[in-house]
């Protein structure tokens, strides 16, 4: 995938507290560019995970189904963000549905490339693992803060952590 400005790689790297703009930029070279119009799904919950997405432009709505299979809107993820990695690292199924809001551009890294890079000890693998891990730790931090708040409030009031970076 060509033509991605270094500025995007830097903003994605910065978002997760990393200093990996050049390596992330190189990583984007292994991705496929995908554009979706408003309302089109990027991925659907419980479907097989077939790739990771780097949200370059726009935003997506994140929904999850509850026990009665009713879709609940969880959050809105805005560029730059990593999406879709949870399904890849946790067993192969999407954990949320992501739908384009007003049109999006994403860089898609397919599952084979993802698996290869996860095993790669070189700079590209390091960049991918750092991005994924930073996003997951960020989500864990928010979730833990939220759970602490729920404990403080007697655990009677539930709110899903406001961080979409690990979903899908």
């Amino acid at each position, binding site marked *: 995938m060509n033509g991605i400005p270094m500025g995007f790689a830097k903003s994605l790297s910065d978002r997760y507290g990393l200093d990996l703009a050049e390596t992330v930029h190189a990583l984007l070279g292994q991705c496929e560019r995908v554009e979706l119009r408003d309302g089109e799904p990027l991925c659907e919950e419980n479907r097989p995970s077939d790739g990771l997405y780097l949200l370059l432009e726009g935003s997506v709505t994140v929904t999850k189904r*509850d026990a009665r299979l009713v879709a609940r809107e969880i959050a809105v993820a805005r560029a730059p963000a990593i999406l879709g990695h949870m399904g890849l690292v946790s067993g192969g199924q999407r954990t949320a549905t992501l739908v384009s809001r007003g049109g999006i551009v994403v860089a898609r890294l397919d599952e084979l490339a993802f698996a290869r890079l996860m095993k790669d000890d070189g700079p590209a693998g390091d960049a991918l693992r*750092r991005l994924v*891990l930073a996003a997951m730790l*960020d989500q*864990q931090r928010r979730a833990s*803060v939220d*759970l602490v708040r729920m*404990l403080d409030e007697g*655990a009677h009031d*539930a709110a899903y952590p406001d961080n979409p970076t690990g979903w899908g």
Partner: protein
Amino acid sequence: MSSPLALRMFRGVPDAAVDALYDAGERLDLRPGAFVVSQGDDATASYVVLSGRLKARLEPGAQDLGDLFPGEVIGPEAVFGRKGTYLTSVVAVNPSTVLKLTRVDLMGLPDSPAVAAMQRHLITVTARRLRTVDHDVRKLWMAQERAAAAERAAERHIPEPEPLGLFGRLKALLGGGQ
């Protein structure tokens, strides 16, 4: 056992790479009662537990979040995440040894198979914890729905939410009882 060579996360990694990681960090021997990190302090280093047993605590009240054993990583966000503060305190229960690692330490180990192995280990562990949270949220949703339905059925009777084991979930999330 105070060498990272024996840790499962480094299985299959060349000894030289693990040794280099060990040499890059700082080994700390802890007496019982010694704090590794304190909740709320700036997270500047991560710590790999090499030996002994430690305990994670949540303030206020020094609530016990569970024990930490060799192979667990304390404060991984300090090295691999966004800068922030430690979410819990961790104190040695038994004589323990940890390997202190900073971002600067790891910058000196480019393309290290040991660092890559540590990243993969943390991704797996964090994914497991996030799945636990996800499961918990779904249970909370169900509890909310049941409560709302009961409220609609009998406005004067508002049932107590069922126990959801949130404290146990929090323990799992924050590092206790892997």
